Protein backbone atom coordinates (compact mmCIF):
# COMPACT_ATOMS: atom_id res chain seq x y z
CA UNK A 1 0.00 0.00 0.00
CA UNK A 2 1.15 3.52 -0.72
CA UNK A 3 1.13 6.13 2.05
CA UNK A 4 -1.99 7.68 0.46
CA UNK A 5 -3.76 4.29 0.45
CA UNK A 6 -2.77 3.68 4.06
CA UNK A 7 -4.17 7.08 5.01
CA UNK A 8 -7.45 6.26 3.27
CA UNK A 9 -7.62 2.99 5.15
CA UNK A 10 -7.01 4.69 8.51
CA UNK A 11 -9.78 7.18 7.73
CA UNK A 12 -12.07 4.26 6.95
CA UNK A 13 -11.25 2.67 10.31
CA UNK A 14 -11.77 5.98 12.14
CA UNK A 15 -15.15 6.42 10.46
CA UNK A 16 -16.24 3.16 12.07
CA UNK A 17 -14.71 3.86 15.46
CA UNK A 18 -15.71 7.52 15.74
CA UNK A 19 -18.88 7.78 13.63
CA UNK A 20 -19.91 11.12 15.14
CA UNK A 21 -16.71 12.90 14.09
CA UNK A 22 -16.10 15.01 11.00
CA UNK A 23 -12.82 13.66 9.64
CA UNK A 24 -12.61 15.82 6.52
CA UNK A 25 -10.51 18.47 8.24
CA UNK A 26 -8.24 16.08 10.13
CA UNK A 27 -4.70 17.50 10.33
CA UNK A 28 -2.10 14.82 9.82
CA UNK A 29 0.60 16.29 12.06
CA UNK A 30 -1.68 16.93 15.04
CA UNK A 31 -2.38 14.05 17.47
CA UNK A 32 -5.76 12.37 16.90
CA UNK A 33 -6.79 12.94 20.50
CA UNK A 34 -6.40 16.70 20.15
CA UNK A 35 -8.84 16.70 17.24
CA UNK A 36 -11.36 13.95 17.86
CA UNK A 37 -12.78 12.14 20.86
CA UNK A 38 -10.74 8.95 21.18
CA UNK A 39 -9.94 7.06 24.38
CA UNK A 40 -7.72 4.08 25.09
CA UNK A 41 -10.41 1.60 24.04
CA UNK A 42 -10.75 3.41 20.71
CA UNK A 43 -7.00 3.11 20.15
CA UNK A 44 -7.28 -0.60 20.81
CA UNK A 45 -10.02 -0.64 18.17
CA UNK A 46 -7.57 0.82 15.65
CA UNK A 47 -5.05 -1.88 16.55
CA UNK A 48 -7.74 -4.59 16.29
CA UNK A 49 -9.01 -3.34 12.94
CA UNK A 50 -5.48 -3.32 11.50
CA UNK A 51 -5.13 -6.91 12.70
CA UNK A 52 -8.50 -7.97 11.30
CA UNK A 53 -8.36 -6.16 7.99
CA UNK A 54 -4.66 -6.47 7.16
CA UNK A 55 -3.21 -8.98 9.61
CA UNK A 56 -0.88 -6.25 10.83
CA UNK A 57 0.26 -6.83 14.40
CA UNK A 58 1.06 -3.69 16.37
CA UNK A 59 2.88 -4.61 19.60
CA UNK A 60 1.93 -2.65 22.70
CA UNK A 61 5.36 -1.03 22.81
CA UNK A 62 4.56 0.64 19.47
CA UNK A 63 1.13 2.05 20.34
CA UNK A 64 2.62 5.53 20.72
CA UNK A 65 3.40 5.44 16.99
CA UNK A 66 -0.34 5.67 16.31
CA UNK A 67 -0.69 9.10 17.93
CA UNK A 68 -1.27 11.09 14.74
CA UNK A 69 -2.12 10.32 11.12
CA UNK A 70 1.41 11.22 9.96
CA UNK A 71 3.11 9.00 12.54
CA UNK A 72 0.64 6.17 11.90
CA UNK A 73 1.22 6.20 8.14
CA UNK A 74 4.97 6.39 8.64
CA UNK A 75 4.87 3.47 11.09
CA UNK A 76 2.62 1.30 8.93
CA UNK A 77 4.29 1.96 5.58
CA UNK A 78 6.95 -0.78 5.88
CA UNK A 79 4.45 -3.17 7.50
CA UNK A 80 1.87 -2.76 4.73
CA UNK A 81 4.25 -2.45 1.79
CA UNK A 82 3.21 -5.75 0.23
CA UNK A 83 -0.44 -5.47 1.16
Amino acid at each position, binding site marked *: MTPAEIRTEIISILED*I*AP*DEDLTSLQDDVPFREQI*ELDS*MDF*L*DIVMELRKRHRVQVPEADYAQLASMASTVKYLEPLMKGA
Partner: protein
Amino acid sequence: MIATMGASRLPDNQRVVITGIGLTAPNGNSLKEFRESLLQGRSGVREYEIRYFGKTVAGICQFEGCRYQARRELRRGTRAGSVGIYCSNEAVKDSGVDWANADKSRVGVYLGVTEHGNVETENEIHELKNYNYDTSFWSHHHNPRTVANNPAGEVALNMGITGPHYTIGAACAAGNAGLIQGAQMLRLNECDVAICGGVSESIHTFGIFASFRSQGALAEHADPCRASRPFDLHRNGIVVAEGGCVFIAERLDDAKRRGARIYGELAGYAMNTDATDFVLPNPDRQAECMELALKRAGLVAEQIDIVSTHATGTVSGDAQECVALRRVFGGSRRTYFNNTKSFIGHSMGAAGALELAGNLGAFQDGVCHATINVDELDPECALDGLVLRQPREIGKAGYILNNSFGMLGINSVAIIKRF
Protein backbone atom coordinates in the same frame (compact mmCIF):
# COMPACT_ATOMS: atom_id res chain seq x y z
CA MET B 1 -38.62 -0.86 57.20
CA ILE B 2 -41.24 -3.27 55.83
CA ALA B 3 -44.82 -2.31 56.48
CA THR B 4 -46.88 -5.10 58.02
CA MET B 5 -50.11 -3.17 58.43
CA GLY B 6 -50.15 -1.10 55.28
CA ALA B 7 -47.65 1.30 53.77
CA SER B 8 -49.86 4.32 54.42
CA ARG B 9 -49.27 3.89 58.17
CA LEU B 10 -45.56 4.45 57.69
CA PRO B 11 -44.01 7.91 58.03
CA ASP B 12 -43.68 9.75 54.71
CA ASN B 13 -39.92 9.18 54.62
CA GLN B 14 -40.60 5.41 54.48
CA ARG B 15 -43.34 5.53 51.87
CA VAL B 16 -42.19 5.03 48.28
CA VAL B 17 -43.98 6.47 45.28
CA ILE B 18 -43.51 6.30 41.51
CA THR B 19 -43.07 9.75 40.00
CA GLY B 20 -41.74 9.02 36.52
CA ILE B 21 -41.92 6.31 33.88
CA GLY B 22 -39.81 5.72 30.77
CA LEU B 23 -40.28 2.67 28.62
CA THR B 24 -39.86 0.98 25.32
CA ALA B 25 -42.13 -1.92 24.41
CA PRO B 26 -42.68 -3.70 21.10
CA ASN B 27 -45.92 -1.72 20.76
CA GLY B 28 -44.97 1.67 22.17
CA ASN B 29 -42.04 3.89 23.11
CA SER B 30 -43.75 5.88 25.85
CA LEU B 31 -46.31 5.12 28.54
CA LYS B 32 -48.96 6.92 26.49
CA GLU B 33 -48.28 4.92 23.31
CA PHE B 34 -48.04 1.67 25.25
CA ARG B 35 -51.31 2.25 27.10
CA GLU B 36 -53.08 3.16 23.86
CA SER B 37 -51.84 -0.03 22.22
CA LEU B 38 -53.05 -2.13 25.15
CA LEU B 39 -56.48 -0.54 25.11
CA GLN B 40 -56.75 -0.85 21.33
CA GLY B 41 -55.58 -4.46 21.20
CA ARG B 42 -52.43 -3.66 19.21
CA SER B 43 -49.78 -6.38 19.28
CA GLY B 44 -46.07 -5.69 18.96
CA VAL B 45 -45.06 -9.17 17.89
CA ARG B 46 -43.75 -9.68 14.38
CA GLU B 47 -41.68 -11.99 12.19
CA TYR B 48 -38.05 -12.26 13.19
CA GLU B 49 -34.96 -14.06 12.03
CA ILE B 50 -31.77 -14.70 13.94
CA ARG B 51 -28.55 -16.45 12.89
CA TYR B 52 -28.27 -20.21 13.31
CA PHE B 53 -31.87 -20.43 14.54
CA GLY B 54 -33.67 -19.06 11.51
CA LYS B 55 -37.17 -17.69 11.27
CA THR B 56 -39.34 -17.19 14.34
CA VAL B 57 -41.44 -14.45 15.92
CA ALA B 58 -40.43 -11.86 18.53
CA GLY B 59 -41.41 -8.63 20.23
CA ILE B 60 -39.10 -6.03 18.70
CA CYS B 61 -38.63 -2.47 19.98
CA GLN B 62 -38.13 0.49 17.70
CA PHE B 63 -37.10 3.28 20.03
CA GLU B 64 -34.84 6.07 18.84
CA GLY B 65 -31.40 4.96 20.02
CA CYS B 66 -29.69 8.20 19.08
CA ARG B 67 -32.06 10.33 21.16
CA TYR B 68 -29.78 10.04 24.19
CA GLN B 69 -26.63 8.39 22.83
CA ALA B 70 -23.98 9.35 20.28
CA ARG B 71 -23.40 6.75 17.59
CA ARG B 72 -20.01 6.04 19.14
CA GLU B 73 -21.67 5.11 22.45
CA LEU B 74 -24.21 2.94 20.67
CA ARG B 75 -21.42 1.07 18.92
CA ARG B 76 -19.43 0.54 22.08
CA GLY B 77 -22.23 -0.44 24.42
CA THR B 78 -24.86 -3.15 24.51
CA ARG B 79 -28.47 -3.25 23.40
CA ALA B 80 -29.54 -3.68 27.03
CA GLY B 81 -27.47 -0.61 27.89
CA SER B 82 -29.19 1.40 25.15
CA VAL B 83 -32.62 0.23 26.29
CA GLY B 84 -31.72 1.28 29.83
CA ILE B 85 -30.36 4.65 28.72
CA TYR B 86 -33.44 5.45 26.65
CA CYS B 87 -35.86 4.44 29.40
CA SER B 88 -33.92 6.16 32.20
CA ASN B 89 -33.64 9.47 30.37
CA GLU B 90 -37.31 9.33 29.44
CA ALA B 91 -38.25 8.52 33.04
CA VAL B 92 -36.25 11.39 34.50
CA LYS B 93 -37.79 13.77 31.98
CA ASP B 94 -41.25 12.46 32.79
CA SER B 95 -40.70 12.83 36.54
CA GLY B 96 -39.96 16.55 36.42
CA VAL B 97 -36.91 16.06 38.69
CA ASP B 98 -34.62 19.08 38.29
CA TRP B 99 -31.95 16.88 36.78
CA ALA B 100 -29.42 19.63 36.01
CA ASN B 101 -29.27 20.55 39.69
CA ALA B 102 -29.85 17.11 41.18
CA ASP B 103 -27.14 15.64 43.41
CA LYS B 104 -26.08 12.73 41.19
CA SER B 105 -24.30 11.06 44.11
CA ARG B 106 -27.73 10.54 45.67
CA VAL B 107 -29.20 8.80 42.61
CA GLY B 108 -29.17 4.99 42.48
CA VAL B 109 -29.65 2.79 39.41
CA TYR B 110 -31.20 -0.64 40.00
CA LEU B 111 -32.09 -2.55 36.85
CA GLY B 112 -33.46 -6.07 36.75
CA VAL B 113 -32.13 -8.48 34.13
CA THR B 114 -33.08 -12.01 33.25
CA GLU B 115 -29.66 -12.64 31.76
CA HIS B 116 -26.84 -10.53 30.41
CA GLY B 117 -23.80 -11.27 28.28
CA ASN B 118 -25.22 -13.98 26.05
CA VAL B 119 -25.75 -11.60 23.13
CA GLU B 120 -22.26 -10.16 23.33
CA THR B 121 -20.56 -13.54 23.78
CA GLU B 122 -22.43 -15.04 20.83
CA ASN B 123 -21.42 -12.05 18.70
CA GLU B 124 -17.75 -12.46 19.56
CA ILE B 125 -17.72 -16.19 18.92
CA HIS B 126 -19.49 -15.64 15.61
CA GLU B 127 -16.85 -13.06 14.66
CA LEU B 128 -14.01 -15.26 15.87
CA LYS B 129 -15.12 -18.00 13.53
CA ASN B 130 -13.94 -15.76 10.66
CA TYR B 131 -10.43 -15.85 12.16
CA ASN B 132 -10.16 -19.59 12.70
CA TYR B 133 -10.90 -19.14 16.42
CA ASP B 134 -7.64 -17.26 17.00
CA THR B 135 -8.40 -15.52 20.29
CA SER B 136 -6.09 -12.60 19.50
CA PHE B 137 -9.07 -11.34 17.48
CA TRP B 138 -11.36 -11.39 20.52
CA SER B 139 -12.57 -7.88 21.30
CA HIS B 140 -11.29 -5.82 24.21
CA HIS B 141 -14.91 -4.62 24.49
CA HIS B 142 -16.06 -8.07 25.56
CA ASN B 143 -15.54 -7.66 29.31
CA PRO B 144 -17.12 -4.21 29.78
CA ARG B 145 -20.02 -5.34 27.62
CA THR B 146 -20.62 -8.56 29.52
CA VAL B 147 -20.05 -7.64 33.16
CA ALA B 148 -23.33 -8.25 34.91
CA ASN B 149 -23.76 -4.59 35.91
CA ASN B 150 -23.40 -3.42 32.28
CA PRO B 151 -26.91 -2.08 31.59
CA ALA B 152 -27.06 -0.12 34.85
CA GLY B 153 -23.46 1.02 34.45
CA GLU B 154 -24.13 2.35 30.96
CA VAL B 155 -27.05 4.34 32.37
CA ALA B 156 -24.81 5.80 35.09
CA LEU B 157 -22.10 6.69 32.55
CA ASN B 158 -24.57 8.28 30.17
CA MET B 159 -26.32 10.35 32.82
CA GLY B 160 -23.38 11.25 35.05
CA ILE B 161 -24.79 9.34 38.02
CA THR B 162 -22.22 8.76 40.77
CA GLY B 163 -24.45 6.99 43.30
CA PRO B 164 -24.71 3.20 43.40
CA HIS B 165 -25.55 1.25 40.27
CA TYR B 166 -26.02 -2.44 39.68
CA THR B 167 -28.30 -4.95 38.03
CA ILE B 168 -30.48 -7.44 39.82
CA GLY B 169 -30.28 -10.87 38.22
CA ALA B 170 -33.69 -12.33 38.89
CA ALA B 171 -34.73 -14.30 35.80
CA CYS B 172 -38.18 -13.20 34.68
CA ALA B 173 -39.04 -11.80 38.11
CA ALA B 174 -36.44 -9.10 37.51
CA GLY B 175 -38.70 -6.17 36.61
CA ASN B 176 -40.46 -6.31 39.96
CA ALA B 177 -37.16 -7.04 41.69
CA GLY B 178 -35.63 -3.84 40.30
CA LEU B 179 -38.50 -1.77 41.64
CA ILE B 180 -38.34 -3.52 45.01
CA GLN B 181 -34.59 -2.95 45.23
CA GLY B 182 -35.08 0.73 44.48
CA ALA B 183 -37.70 1.02 47.21
CA GLN B 184 -35.47 -0.73 49.72
CA MET B 185 -32.57 1.59 48.98
CA LEU B 186 -34.84 4.64 49.33
CA ARG B 187 -36.07 3.39 52.70
CA LEU B 188 -32.49 2.82 53.83
CA ASN B 189 -31.69 6.38 52.72
CA GLU B 190 -28.99 5.03 50.38
CA CYS B 191 -30.29 7.32 47.65
CA ASP B 192 -32.86 10.07 47.12
CA VAL B 193 -33.90 9.10 43.60
CA ALA B 194 -34.08 5.47 42.50
CA ILE B 195 -33.94 4.72 38.78
CA CYS B 196 -35.34 1.21 38.89
CA GLY B 197 -37.10 -1.36 36.76
CA GLY B 198 -35.93 -3.88 34.20
CA VAL B 199 -34.42 -4.26 30.74
CA SER B 200 -34.07 -7.00 28.15
CA GLU B 201 -32.02 -7.52 24.99
CA SER B 202 -32.85 -11.21 24.88
CA ILE B 203 -34.12 -11.37 21.29
CA HIS B 204 -30.54 -10.81 20.11
CA THR B 205 -29.29 -14.15 21.45
CA PHE B 206 -30.18 -17.17 19.36
CA GLY B 207 -29.56 -19.27 22.45
CA ILE B 208 -32.73 -18.20 24.21
CA PHE B 209 -34.89 -19.18 21.22
CA ALA B 210 -33.07 -22.47 20.73
CA SER B 211 -33.27 -23.35 24.40
CA PHE B 212 -36.98 -22.62 24.64
CA ARG B 213 -37.58 -24.68 21.51
CA SER B 214 -35.57 -27.59 22.89
CA GLN B 215 -37.67 -27.31 26.03
CA GLY B 216 -40.85 -27.38 23.92
CA ALA B 217 -41.72 -23.92 25.17
CA LEU B 218 -41.28 -21.61 22.16
CA ALA B 219 -44.45 -20.20 20.60
CA GLU B 220 -45.25 -20.83 16.96
CA HIS B 221 -48.10 -19.38 14.91
CA ALA B 222 -48.64 -18.46 11.28
CA ASP B 223 -49.72 -14.96 12.35
CA PRO B 224 -47.03 -13.41 14.58
CA CYS B 225 -49.60 -11.15 16.29
CA ARG B 226 -51.46 -14.21 17.49
CA ALA B 227 -48.48 -16.25 18.67
CA SER B 228 -48.48 -15.05 22.28
CA ARG B 229 -51.68 -16.52 23.72
CA PRO B 230 -51.60 -17.04 27.48
CA PHE B 231 -54.67 -18.90 28.83
CA ASP B 232 -55.76 -20.07 25.36
CA LEU B 233 -56.35 -23.79 25.04
CA HIS B 234 -54.03 -23.94 22.03
CA ARG B 235 -51.16 -21.91 23.44
CA ASN B 236 -47.82 -23.46 22.59
CA GLY B 237 -45.14 -21.44 24.30
CA ILE B 238 -43.33 -18.16 24.84
CA VAL B 239 -42.78 -15.30 22.40
CA VAL B 240 -39.43 -13.75 23.30
CA ALA B 241 -39.40 -9.95 23.39
CA GLU B 242 -37.01 -7.14 24.12
CA GLY B 243 -37.91 -4.00 26.02
CA GLY B 244 -37.39 -1.91 29.07
CA CYS B 245 -39.27 0.00 31.70
CA VAL B 246 -37.73 2.32 34.25
CA PHE B 247 -39.50 3.96 37.17
CA ILE B 248 -38.39 7.02 39.04
CA ALA B 249 -39.12 6.15 42.66
CA GLU B 250 -38.83 8.61 45.52
CA ARG B 251 -39.75 8.82 49.17
CA LEU B 252 -43.13 10.41 49.61
CA ASP B 253 -41.86 13.39 51.60
CA ASP B 254 -39.42 14.29 48.80
CA ALA B 255 -42.08 13.85 46.14
CA LYS B 256 -44.53 16.03 48.05
CA ARG B 257 -41.90 18.71 48.67
CA ARG B 258 -41.30 19.19 44.97
CA GLY B 259 -44.96 18.84 44.04
CA ALA B 260 -44.37 15.76 41.91
CA ARG B 261 -47.11 14.01 39.98
CA ILE B 262 -47.50 10.59 41.62
CA TYR B 263 -48.45 7.56 39.51
CA GLY B 264 -48.93 5.33 42.54
CA GLU B 265 -47.48 4.14 45.80
CA LEU B 266 -45.71 0.84 46.42
CA ALA B 267 -48.17 -0.51 48.96
CA GLY B 268 -46.52 -3.88 49.42
CA TYR B 269 -44.20 -6.39 47.87
CA ALA B 270 -42.76 -9.83 48.41
CA MET B 271 -40.19 -12.17 46.93
CA ASN B 272 -39.73 -15.85 47.71
CA THR B 273 -38.42 -19.07 46.20
CA ASP B 274 -40.02 -22.35 45.14
CA ALA B 275 -36.96 -24.47 45.90
CA THR B 276 -38.57 -27.30 43.92
CA ASP B 277 -37.48 -27.24 40.25
CA PHE B 278 -35.23 -25.50 37.73
CA VAL B 279 -38.08 -24.50 35.42
CA LEU B 280 -41.46 -25.78 36.63
CA PRO B 281 -43.33 -23.33 38.86
CA ASN B 282 -44.75 -24.14 42.26
CA PRO B 283 -48.22 -22.64 42.78
CA ASP B 284 -47.99 -23.02 46.57
CA ARG B 285 -44.97 -20.75 46.73
CA GLN B 286 -46.51 -18.33 44.19
CA ALA B 287 -49.63 -18.09 46.34
CA GLU B 288 -47.53 -17.57 49.45
CA CYS B 289 -45.68 -14.75 47.69
CA MET B 290 -48.96 -13.00 46.81
CA GLU B 291 -50.32 -13.53 50.32
CA LEU B 292 -47.17 -12.12 51.88
CA ALA B 293 -47.35 -9.01 49.67
CA LEU B 294 -51.02 -8.56 50.60
CA LYS B 295 -50.22 -8.95 54.30
CA ARG B 296 -47.43 -6.42 54.14
CA ALA B 297 -49.74 -4.01 52.33
CA GLY B 298 -52.37 -4.51 55.04
CA LEU B 299 -54.82 -5.72 52.39
CA VAL B 300 -57.08 -8.66 51.71
CA ALA B 301 -57.55 -10.14 48.24
CA GLU B 302 -60.96 -8.47 47.76
CA GLN B 303 -59.29 -5.07 47.81
CA ILE B 304 -57.20 -5.78 44.69
CA ASP B 305 -58.91 -4.46 41.55
CA ILE B 306 -56.49 -5.80 38.93
CA VAL B 307 -54.05 -8.66 38.97
CA SER B 308 -51.48 -8.35 36.21
CA THR B 309 -50.68 -12.01 35.65
CA HIS B 310 -47.27 -13.38 34.78
CA ALA B 311 -48.55 -16.14 32.47
CA THR B 312 -46.17 -16.61 29.53
CA GLY B 313 -48.15 -18.88 27.24
CA THR B 314 -46.64 -22.20 28.28
CA VAL B 315 -49.03 -25.08 28.85
CA SER B 316 -47.88 -25.81 32.37
CA GLY B 317 -46.92 -22.35 33.63
CA ASP B 318 -50.24 -20.64 32.89
CA ALA B 319 -52.27 -23.39 34.50
CA GLN B 320 -50.06 -23.44 37.57
CA GLU B 321 -50.35 -19.68 38.06
CA CYS B 322 -54.12 -20.03 37.85
CA VAL B 323 -54.00 -22.58 40.67
CA ALA B 324 -52.18 -20.03 42.79
CA LEU B 325 -54.54 -17.21 41.75
CA ARG B 326 -57.61 -19.28 42.67
CA ARG B 327 -56.15 -20.01 46.06
CA VAL B 328 -55.54 -16.32 46.80
CA PHE B 329 -58.39 -14.64 44.91
CA GLY B 330 -60.95 -17.40 44.68
CA GLY B 331 -63.27 -15.63 47.06
CA SER B 332 -62.93 -12.18 45.54
CA ARG B 333 -65.81 -10.90 43.43
CA ARG B 334 -64.05 -7.65 42.76
CA THR B 335 -60.74 -8.67 41.24
CA TYR B 336 -60.04 -8.66 37.50
CA PHE B 337 -57.14 -10.43 35.82
CA ASN B 338 -55.31 -9.58 32.62
CA ASN B 339 -52.15 -10.48 30.77
CA THR B 340 -49.89 -8.05 28.93
CA LYS B 341 -47.61 -10.68 27.38
CA SER B 342 -50.47 -11.52 25.02
CA PHE B 343 -49.68 -8.16 23.30
CA ILE B 344 -45.90 -7.93 23.44
CA GLY B 345 -44.57 -11.39 24.24
CA HIS B 346 -42.31 -12.06 27.17
CA SER B 347 -39.89 -9.19 27.62
CA MET B 348 -37.90 -11.14 30.18
CA GLY B 349 -36.08 -8.79 32.58
CA ALA B 350 -38.36 -5.94 31.58
CA ALA B 351 -41.59 -7.93 31.81
CA GLY B 352 -42.52 -7.24 35.43
CA ALA B 353 -41.92 -3.51 35.13
CA LEU B 354 -43.52 -3.12 31.69
CA GLU B 355 -46.62 -5.10 32.63
CA LEU B 356 -47.06 -3.06 35.80
CA ALA B 357 -46.62 0.21 33.90
CA GLY B 358 -49.15 -0.89 31.30
CA ASN B 359 -51.76 -1.28 34.02
CA LEU B 360 -51.16 1.95 35.93
CA GLY B 361 -53.44 3.88 33.59
CA ALA B 362 -56.37 2.06 35.22
CA PHE B 363 -55.96 4.30 38.28
CA GLN B 364 -57.17 7.17 36.11
CA ASP B 365 -59.13 5.79 33.16
CA GLY B 366 -60.81 2.97 35.07
CA VAL B 367 -60.18 0.43 32.31
CA CYS B 368 -58.66 -3.00 32.73
CA HIS B 369 -56.95 -3.89 29.46
CA ALA B 370 -57.63 -7.31 28.06
CA THR B 371 -55.83 -10.55 27.47
CA ILE B 372 -55.87 -10.90 23.70
CA ASN B 373 -55.53 -14.01 21.52
CA VAL B 374 -57.73 -16.20 23.70
CA ASP B 375 -59.92 -17.88 21.09
CA GLU B 376 -60.78 -20.83 23.27
CA LEU B 377 -60.18 -20.41 26.97
CA ASP B 378 -58.38 -23.33 28.59
CA PRO B 379 -60.74 -24.61 31.29
CA GLU B 380 -57.72 -24.93 33.56
CA CYS B 381 -57.21 -21.17 33.19
CA ALA B 382 -60.83 -20.13 33.62
CA LEU B 383 -60.77 -17.54 36.38
CA ASP B 384 -63.74 -15.44 37.36
CA GLY B 385 -62.80 -11.91 36.44
CA LEU B 386 -60.39 -12.81 33.63
CA VAL B 387 -60.66 -9.98 31.12
CA LEU B 388 -60.57 -11.49 27.63
CA ARG B 389 -60.36 -10.01 24.13
CA GLN B 390 -61.82 -6.57 24.94
CA PRO B 391 -60.87 -4.10 27.68
CA ARG B 392 -63.37 -3.73 30.50
CA GLU B 393 -64.62 -0.64 32.32
CA ILE B 394 -64.15 -1.38 36.00
CA GLY B 395 -64.09 2.08 37.53
CA LYS B 396 -60.95 3.74 38.84
CA ALA B 397 -58.74 1.02 40.25
CA GLY B 398 -57.53 1.39 43.82
CA TYR B 399 -54.91 -1.37 43.90
CA ILE B 400 -53.00 -3.31 41.24
CA LEU B 401 -51.11 -6.49 42.07
CA ASN B 402 -48.34 -7.42 39.65
CA ASN B 403 -47.01 -10.98 39.41
CA SER B 404 -43.61 -11.77 37.97
CA PHE B 405 -42.05 -15.21 38.28
CA GLY B 406 -38.91 -16.81 36.88
CA MET B 407 -36.73 -19.86 36.43
CA LEU B 408 -35.05 -21.44 39.43
CA GLY B 409 -38.28 -20.77 41.26
CA ILE B 410 -37.96 -17.03 41.84
CA ASN B 411 -41.25 -15.27 42.59
CA SER B 412 -41.97 -11.57 42.96
CA VAL B 413 -45.12 -9.59 43.66
CA ALA B 414 -45.60 -5.83 43.81
CA ILE B 415 -48.78 -4.06 44.85
CA ILE B 416 -49.32 -0.47 43.77
CA LYS B 417 -51.92 1.81 45.32
CA ARG B 418 -53.64 4.71 43.60
CA PHE B 419 -52.41 7.92 45.19
